[in-house]
């Protein structure tokens, strides 16, 4: 796999450390009543076969956190954005 880092250009996959599903959202509250949301966030995963947004750290490059959109069956990469842009886009209406 080749990953196109927004800062460094196209780089080999071994420069990146993957860290799972980027679509899960950390609950805003620490209230014990939100424990179901926390359980969801920490443990449950959609684990899709197909298109998947995942965190990737460019650990042997610019060290930026990225979100890679990839097909989990074909390994084809559709899109790479910074985690910051991904988060901003998510909270936008």
């Amino acid at each position, binding site marked *: 796999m080749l990953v196109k880092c927004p800062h460094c250009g196209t780089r080999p996959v071994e420069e990146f450390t*993957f860290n799972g599903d980027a679509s899960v959202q950390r609950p805003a509250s620490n209230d014990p009543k939100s424990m179901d949301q926390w359980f969801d966030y920490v443990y449950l995963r959609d*684990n899709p076969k197909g298109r998947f947004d*995942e965190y990737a750290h460019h650990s042997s490059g610019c060290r930026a956190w990225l979100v890679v959109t990839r097909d989990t*069956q074909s*390994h084809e990469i559709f899109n790479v954005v910074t985690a910051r842009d991904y988060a901003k886009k998510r909270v936008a209406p």
Partner: protein
Amino acid sequence: MKYSVFSLLKNTLSGHKKWPAAWRDPQPKQDYDVIIIGGGGHGLATAYYLAKVHGISNVAVLEKSWLGSGNVGRNTTIIRSNYMLPGNNPFYEWSMKLWEGLEQDFNFNAMVSQRGVLNLCHTDPQRDAFARRGNAMRIDGVDAELLDRERVREMYPFLDFNNARFPIKGGILQRRGGTVRHDAVAWGYARGADSRGVDIIQNCEVTGIKTVKGKVMGVQTSRGFIGCKKLGLAAAGNSSEVAAMAGLKLPIESHVLQAFVSEGLKPYIDGVVTFGAGHFYVSQSDKGGLVFGGDIDGYNSYARRGNLPMVEHVIEAGVAMIPGLARVRVLRSWGGIMDMSMDGSPIIDRTPIDGLYLNAGWCYGGFKATPASGWCFAHTIAKGAPHKLNAAYRLDRFRRGCMIDEKGQGASPNLH
């Protein structure tokens, strides 16, 4: 037909042309008492023990491809019971005991070979951790021997004892561990289940699960609707996909793990050796090929093939452990899809849906567990409640905070 020296002689006289098929190829019936989704090792073992131990033989095993086409035919064939935590070790030791009597039990040669599993240690703290693990094993009645460097050298003189980064300080040996002919496990269980009346239906993909008022009614398949009273999921890497058909979201991610085999060599490694620092493990098959593997690739995947960086990493670790491997050529590599759970331990349990049972989350350690997994899952399905041996493998343990985190990595499936 019982396989024996007499059946062998009889069939030799007829030129081996009259052996009956080892199992039938039945059409699916309209409904069954129990349907198992997944015709791999765990699904077939479950059907076998349902029929043999619990007398439930109106059972179908549905396999979307051919029998044993998944991880039971893709693993590195190692069996061991060298776990540490109380929820794990009695279960894996029961599996080892079932392996020890398996061939007589299902009348099939699975080539169970207790050739010993040796884990190497490379630092003093790692040796301390191994001593602790060995003691935990012995408390549960499992054999474990802590070896010093010279004892390891007697066994495997060709290891790189003076590796600058990971010098070998000793190891922990489980002599009862070893290897099993993996395909024969699937075949033996299939034949044993089939002869007790279980229908094994291949090329039958489940496309939907029908539930009414929170109770399982049956499954939609590529060969029509099949009704059932109870439904067991044993779909390994595809567990999330199958569970989603019943509206369940699992604490599981699917990852790809690669394995390798070298060209055939003369007898070289007579046991299983694992390189504790680099996560590399190797044994030699009876054909002479070195069978080895390492870590998962590290990213979610449903592709049964990995990428080259992990191939390079595994082979580097192998050469660091056994410098002589540098001259061996790799013949084949392949990948399998692992159902990586959030604590590195499996799930064998009921689900919130009445009549739906789950067997998943085996990470990359499912093969050694095959007999006990089938045995416990059959018990759980037949009795409607877990056996003492799988009592810790509950689906709700994550919510309750009762994880069985053997590696202490937390909820990071790609690190287990």
